């Protein structure tokens, strides 16, 4: 990789210098247009800052003109690994390794130079974080209603070709997008200390917690199965976004289209159901009343937080889809070239009507983007010292089981026809909620990318499917190869 592209890159943070594509790299397109970045990275940054402010108060390390928690280099979105590692140190018992295992595929965590919270500060943060998590339910319910109203507004504005309606949609979407990303950040951040607490407590109560944990932390119902009923069509129904790229709003045009590959959408399969009692239910009975109640309550909180994380993400994607549908119409209403808007940020686009000169920035930015897209960007990036370097190799780490169970089946890819008479293992580089409709037809999931809290890990647990992530073998597997995966140990065998 080379140096910066001033027109599109952000300034690297002066103290938190190590970035990782991490969770974004698993599911988001490898490159995002400036418009998509401004709808993803910037509100996510605001949401994370809001969380830090609400939990720890005004902290110098989480403020300033630089992006603290996100990065955008060579059109690639990154999380600031140093900042998240530092954030983890502000809570009791939480280590940076817990964050990297949960969201960054176990990559080595960078050292932190910034000051840590005092013990008192760490302890005081806990009830505040609990309060934030407790607010999630009402927040998500409110957002669900508001996003539905916004979709209706956008639908009407597009139908009537109403410039005022389209403008109102974009303006109203801004606050909702901030709130939805903020809720997503609360769930994402909150899951790490919750699972650390759960591990610590259950180690004492259960003895062999590591073995039992994946059976316990299963969300009961995720939002995706509901949304997939509304997939397809062009009426801006809640599930319409499922036919599009999750993060890229300009996914139907070059140069962004190749980065925004979607899996095929099929009629929805249901979660594997059987009359057999779930192992988690069996575990409660083995514990007795008091211990069972403690373990069950905590597992329910973790499961609900996982479900809230997926819910908040679905709201974000619906809001991005509103932009995907509205922005071209609004650009046309303002007599602007249709190819122009993906190169602007949403803030610039909102000012476009009043400041037509903004459009003149686009040619230079387009050239910078073309140059950036020709430059390979690493998974993990060290920007300390002013010279960009690769932080850690891009190879998958040790394969990890993220949803328990063992299954043997033939390799299928998302775009294949699935055989009906043999068990199938869905094999893909990474997987997002868009594979949810496929999960009812397969018997296990194997991915090259992924972490303990990846979306595919949560989905596989909901569907009771064994899942292994971070497997380097994935590239070598061909359709109809027979593999056995063990979602408990992370072992993968290629059968003869």
């Amino acid at each position, binding site marked *: 990789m080379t140096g910066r592209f001033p027109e599109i890159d952000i300034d690297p943070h002066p103290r938190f210098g190590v970035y990782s594509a991490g969770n974004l790299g698993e599911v988001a397109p490898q490159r995002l247009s400036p418009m998509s970045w401004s709808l993803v990275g910037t509100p996510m940054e605001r949401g994370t800052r809001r969380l830090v402010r609400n939990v720890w108060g005004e902290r110098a390390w989480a403020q300033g003109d630089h992006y603290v928690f996100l990065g955008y280099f060579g059109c690639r979105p990154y999380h600031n690994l140093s900042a998240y590692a530092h954030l983890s140190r502000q809570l009791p018992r939480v280590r940076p390794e817990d964050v990297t295992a949960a969201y960054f595929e176990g990559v080595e965590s960078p050292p932190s130079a910034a000051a840590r919270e005092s013990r008192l500060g760490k302890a005081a943060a806990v009830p505040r974080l609990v309060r934030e998590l407790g607010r999630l339910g009402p927040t998500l319910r409110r957002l669900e209603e508001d996003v539905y109203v916004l979709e209706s507004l956008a639908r009407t504005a597009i139908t009537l070709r109403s410039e005022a309606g389209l403008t109102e949609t974009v303006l109203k979407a801004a606050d909702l997008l901030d709130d939805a990303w903020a809720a997503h950040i609360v769930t994402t951040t909150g899951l790490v200390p919750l699972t650390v607490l759960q591990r610590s407590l259950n180690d004492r109560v259960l003895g062999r917690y590591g*073995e039992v944990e994946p059976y316990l932390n299963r969300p009961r119902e995720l939002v995706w199965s509901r949304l997939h009923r509304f997939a397809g069509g062009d009426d801006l129904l809640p599930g319409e976004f499922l036919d599009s790229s999750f993060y890229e709003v300009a996914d139907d045009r070059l140069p962004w289209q190749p980065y925004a590959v979607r899996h095929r959408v099929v009629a929805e399969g249901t979660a594997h159901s059987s*009359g*057999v009692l779930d192992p988690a239910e069996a575990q409660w*009975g083995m514990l007795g009343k008091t211990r069972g109640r403690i373990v069950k309550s905590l597992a329910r909180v973790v499961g609900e937080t996982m479900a809230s994380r997926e819910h908040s993400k679905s709201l974000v994607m619906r809001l991005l889809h509103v932009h995907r549908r509205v922005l071209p119409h609004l650009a046309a209403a303002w007599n602007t070239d249709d190819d122009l808007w993906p190169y602007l940020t949403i803030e610039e686009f909102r000012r476009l009507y009043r400041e037509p000169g903004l459009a003149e920035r686009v040619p230079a930015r387009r050239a910078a983007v073309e140059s950036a897209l020709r430059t390979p960007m690493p998974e993990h990036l060290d920007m300390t010292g002013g010279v960009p370097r690769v932080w850690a190799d891009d190879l998958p780490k040790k394969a990890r089981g993220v949803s328990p169970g*063992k299954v043997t089946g033939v390799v299928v890819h998302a775009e294949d026809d699935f055989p009906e008479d043999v068990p199938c293992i869905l094999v893909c580089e990474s997987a997002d909620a868009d594979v949810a409709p496929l999960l009812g037809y397969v018997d296990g999931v194997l991915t090259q990318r992924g972490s303990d809290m990846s979306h595919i890990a949560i989905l596989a647990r909901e569907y009771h499917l064994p899942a292994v992530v971070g497997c380097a073998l994935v590239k070598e597997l061909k359709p109809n190869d027979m593999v056995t995966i063990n979602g408990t140990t992370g072992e993968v065998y290629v059968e003869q």
Partner: protein
Amino acid sequence: MSVLVLGGSGYLGRAVCLELEGAGLDVVALSRSGSAAAGRGLRGDVTRHNLGLFGDELAELQAEVTHVVGVFGSVDWDSGPAQALDVHATGVRNVLRFSRACPKLEALVHVSSLLAFGRAEGRVGNRELYVGQDFRNWYEYGKYHAEALVREAEDLPFTVLRFGPLLGPDPAGHALGAGDGLLAAVPYLLQGYPVHLKHGGRFPSYVGDVVGAAEVVAAAVRTPATGATWTWFDPALPTVAEVMHRLCRPWGVVPKIVDSAVVGRVQRLVASRIGLPKALLDYAEPWFDLDPSVMDTLPGGPPACRPGYLAGTGRALLEPEADLQGSFT
């Protein structure tokens, strides 16, 4: 008839192989070790796809097998969920898949356990499996899970057999081990420690003789499979206290059995220090209420146990090769 015995090198598996070969059947005993007390030994693994078999060996076996008997999985009350589900969920799924690929299959005989009832409340019989019970350990859940999977396989001709804890000298002459199951209490009792059993242990143990269990398996192989569930245990229905006394008698020891909740709590506190498996303590109360008529469905009536099989078990544990798991002996 060609019978494939899965887990043929185990305690029950050996007895089943001897019984089936004695009845004139072709027996193939599949196990990880590949050893066989009778019939042909075959190395395989039920937790692997196609039972760990490949190519011609797999094809020939599937072509010839008429009966599959599943007696795999050791009695391990301390196993975790991964181990229990690996054997009893993955293993049974593999067996079901293998059985579906056998064109001559006449019956799948699945050996389950009465412990699949866990702490079931109310009277239970052959018809019931899940009645809202709690499970004491992952072994019980594993046995329940396996039986539930077999019952769901309505496309296969199967018979489910339920046994209680199996005892008795090994008919193949192998040394016994006292590491798991009820026998794990023996070293503890022999050391003279008091043991708490509700009602002084005067509740049914549902134990049976391993040879009698093998006779039931042979009967299931001979009888057309209709998806029935059979239950068998020692018709004399010895109590837990009686079993313990008879196991200890060859040693000249009378076990100190008391009905004292305090002793029970102390036992639980010091269990790991005195080598007593904690899982065993969960069986100190009556297990479940089993319908006495469950054995009426056995064709020809329930087989009897070998006379003195309980004392014989104790004597077998006296043998130098017996494994008492590092007890004072």
